[in-house]
């Protein structure tokens, strides 16, 4: 069963087995405003936890999306190339960024569940 976690950098991580799907929270997309471009990582790229995984460009600014775990990129959301606004309209669903293998499940320790994240974002 998928497990949804959040980071303090306003990313969500959906854990299914040894794969994590990564996106940004509804709070984050709202803070960014209209998203106009996303630079996605190359499939096969090895990332360490905290490395830049993607770059999301809004009208105003560029922001980095960090990898939540050590692992290797297995898939990226190509739909964002044609429709970057999916990050605004469906941040928790079709607006996902990339999938990455989870080399060590301990990397997920300390992430927030949905209720804890909601309290964090509103705080």
């Amino acid at each position, binding site marked *: 069963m998928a497990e949804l976690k959040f980071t303090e950098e306003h990313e969500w991580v959906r854990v299914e087995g040894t794969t994590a799907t990564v996106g940004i929270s509804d709070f984050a997309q709202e803070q960014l405003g209209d998203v106009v*471009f996303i630079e996605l990582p190359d499939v096969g790229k090895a990332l360490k936890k905290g490395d830049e995984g993607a770059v999301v*460009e809004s*009208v105003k600014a*560029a*922001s*980095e999306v960090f990898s939540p775990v050590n692992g290797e990129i297995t898939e990226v959301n190509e739909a964002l190339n044609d429709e970057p606004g999916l990050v605004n309209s469906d941040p928790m669903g079709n607006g996902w960024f990339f999938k990455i293998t989870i080399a060590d499940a301990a990397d997920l320790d300390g992430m927030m569940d949905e209720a804890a994240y909601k309290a964090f974002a509103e705080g």
Partner: protein
Amino acid sequence: MSNTKPDTNDAPLKQTPLAALHQELGARMVPFTGYNMPVQYQGIIAEHTHTRTQAGLFDVSHMGQAILHGPDIEKALETLVPGDIAGLAEGRVRYTLLTNDAGGVLDDLMVTRHEDHLFLIVNAACKDADFAHISAQLGKAYTLEIKADLALLALQGPAAVTVLSRLAPEAAQMSFMSAQTLVLGGIECDVTRSGYTGEDGFEISVSASRVERLARRLLDEPEVAPIGLGARDSLRLEAGLCLYGSDIDTVTTPIEAGLNWTISKRRRTEGGFPGADIILQQLAEGPQRKRVGLKPEGKAPARAHTEITDSAGKKIGEVTSGGFGPSVGGPVAMGYVETAHAKPGTPVNFQVRGKALPGEVVALPFVPHQYFK
């Protein structure tokens, strides 16, 4: 994710007289040049498009407004700016620059000629320094009356004239860069037909105590929506207009910036403004670098401070403003390049996150000006 938190600063932020209205309208507020300002309401792209197609209302009350009096005031101001102020007829507005002795730009400003004084509008970030500079340079014979009791609204877009002439029919007859006192909804205002979006429109100087009433009156008109600083920036960038502190500053000259048109024939002949020797020499010989329009080929924006290289990878300049142009539907930028590379059509590369993104030099503006003729 980075950049999700606004910048914080220890100094308390100043408010414009419309702070309560912005909050009521659901604005996202951000610190900007010491003020708490609305960056967006419904979203930058929607607000940008609304301004290009209907009419947008901007609160620009953070800008500095002042009245300058004294003997032979036009000639006095001409000692500080390269613009033709003596040739400015009463009721006319001119865009000019405060220059320094190195030919750099201290600020850009709007000057309106009134019967017995000049009215100045300067940038928020520069206003304290500008006013101190003008007072110090002109000396005791001149009075600079800082109008902190005035707010400033901009009503911009193709429907701006329709809206404003509903409140005051004379608005429709105003020519571009003219000034007139109009009574709008019972409130006396100093209005100019000018703006910072490339669209037809007006700037309205009004008492701080009455600006909220006027803003609400204008927002009641069906064509009008409130517009934040985010869209103000994308609109002016598409219109090829300079942002002080980004595209022009103390180390760029008016000639490098392509603002030659702000220096009249008489001022070119007579000089007599700070940095005239350098500015007039550049005018005669051509500058080493020029401000140009820049179009990245793909979808990735090239932001301010992005390095520009030629096909061989040599650095030829830097982006000074860049982002997404909603009317263009893609990235747009401006910046400085060496003069040899300044011709429209010249291929360039933008060094973005370690990659060379292709693009080219293009003519400005990106979106044709729609000023009232």
